[in-house]
């Protein structure tokens, strides 16, 4: 939550502007396409590397858990994220971790998704919308597909972690907002296009688990899930060496 008059956390705009400017010189070190039927994935990113998630063909939401690669008990903290950065991620948004370190885990340095307007602040790349799960799907559709929870569990398993490490997540390429009148969650179909991507600079060593959401691009409401054929599309994950070291983050006493 944002208290009126809250000072901004330190942010070295010059450093990140230089990082963005240097992107064309980044060296790609891996390129992997996550695609059905393998809809859960996990990967490591070293501090100072960047990872890019790319829409390959059609709009596809991905739920992404981000953890400290050296201590996975430190992970993305969506409530803190909402308080500091607001409800959505775009270029120069930092992705914040849990207390007590309460530091940026990564920083968004590129976001190519465009939208014509933002009625009710329904935008892409949401910070608070959690992940779909077997309860959700079974209740609404009577089916239990590979939900985001299952996909994230598979991604965590690839990293040697159990389902207990699944926590708050980012919803990238998802177009959502909160209705200011009711406080209820709103979602519309994603407008990402083939080739659109979002890219993050790793401030620490990271473990990332991701899910190709069975919700697809988000255009079908849960009430319409029964009998619906919701396509799931691939996303590419690319990792780059940036040649830049992350800035140190000040330690605070609790």
């Amino acid at each position: 939550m944002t208290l009126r008059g809250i000072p901004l956390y330190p942010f070295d705009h010059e450093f990140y502007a230089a990082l963005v400017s240097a992107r064309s010189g980044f060296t790609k070190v891996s390129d992997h396409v996550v695609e059905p039927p393998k809809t859960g994935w996990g990967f490591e990113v070293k501090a100072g590397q960047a990872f890019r998630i790319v829409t390959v063909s059609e709009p596809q939401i991905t739920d992404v858990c981000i953890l400290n690669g050296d201590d996975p008990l430190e992970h993305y903290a969506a409530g803190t994220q909402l308080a500091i950065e607001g409800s959505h991620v775009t270029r120069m948004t930092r992705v914040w971790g849990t207390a007590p370190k309460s530091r940026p885990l990564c920083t968004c340095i590129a976001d190519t998704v465009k939208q014509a307007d933002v009625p009710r602040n329904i935008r892409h790349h949401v910070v608070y919308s959690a992940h779909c799960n077997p309860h959700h799907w079974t209740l609404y559709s009577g089916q239990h597909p590979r939900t985001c929870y299952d996909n994230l569990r598979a991604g965590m398993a690839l990293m040697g972690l159990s389902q207990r490490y699944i926590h708050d997540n980012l919803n990238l390429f998802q177009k959502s907002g909160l209705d200011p009148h009711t406080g209820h969650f709103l979602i519309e179909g994603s407008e990402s296009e083939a080739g659109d991507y979002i890219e993050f600079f790793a401030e620490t060593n990271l473990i990332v688990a991701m899910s190709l959401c069975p919700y697809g691009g988000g255009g079908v409401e849960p009430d319409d899930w029964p009998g619906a054929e919701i396509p799931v599309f691939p996303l590419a994950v690319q990792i780059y060496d940036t040649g830049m070291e992350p800035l140190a983050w000040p330690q605070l006493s609790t």
Partner: protein
Amino acid sequence: MPSALKRNADHSSHSRPFDSAFYRGVADARSTAKQRVEQVVADPAGYRLDVKAGELLTVELIDGPQIVNMLAFNSDDPDERFWAHQTCLIDGLFLSRWSRLWGTMARLRPLMTVLEDTVATRPIDGVVAPKHHPVLGGAGTPAQWHYSGGGMSAMSSWAQFARGLEASGLGAELIVDNACLFQKSAVEGGRVTTYPSDALRGDRLTFFVEIDLAVLLALSPCLDGSDPPNQIRSSPRAVKVAVTEPVAEPLAWPYEGMGYPDLSLYLDSNGVRSTEATPTPGRES
């Protein structure tokens, strides 16, 4: 399942079945319920109380408006704890009467249900629909307090929770998100902004406890949200916490006839979430 049970929150695309007749009956039982605990919480040091399924928990303001941060977890299995994000998806950002607080996977079931919310929200010129009791709190971390200019002598809500957990032999990693009782907030653009609380002395929230829980309360050093942290000179205001004897047997979850997943895919032989690093059986991807 009757369609009347299908939806609780209007406009929520993720709502869950809700037996309103049952909860109205439980709410009616408040007046005759026998109290077993009544405690004034004045020290911002992390207060824990244990409540049993079927009991009523009331948090009441006795010294003026005060934001009270709350988290709750299954007292037998702390891995099952309040999940703010699913609560927001299912019931919306703000708690009010009949809102439920949802727990984490694998059970994803109601932990508590709000029976009573006496706070009346006044409109604010130029602000769309402010409300009280948002659920997506970031636990008021020490860093948040520090970078807001708060005095270092005050204990952040996160630090209060951590102290309460430590006293229970539990780690601070359980603190992920929390509900912000009596906090007035509004969704403005991409922000959830806090305004001075409209709550008054005597205002209260009463919860029906759905399973045995440990509840942690933290008195926010931000008091009622009137002033930014760098202008706060006072200590948090005391609140009263009351717990009754059980007033009703909670409804079994899931409701009869409701679609529900096979929990054996997620739980181990002890009935808790498996700690094996394996995909969901039958859904390996």
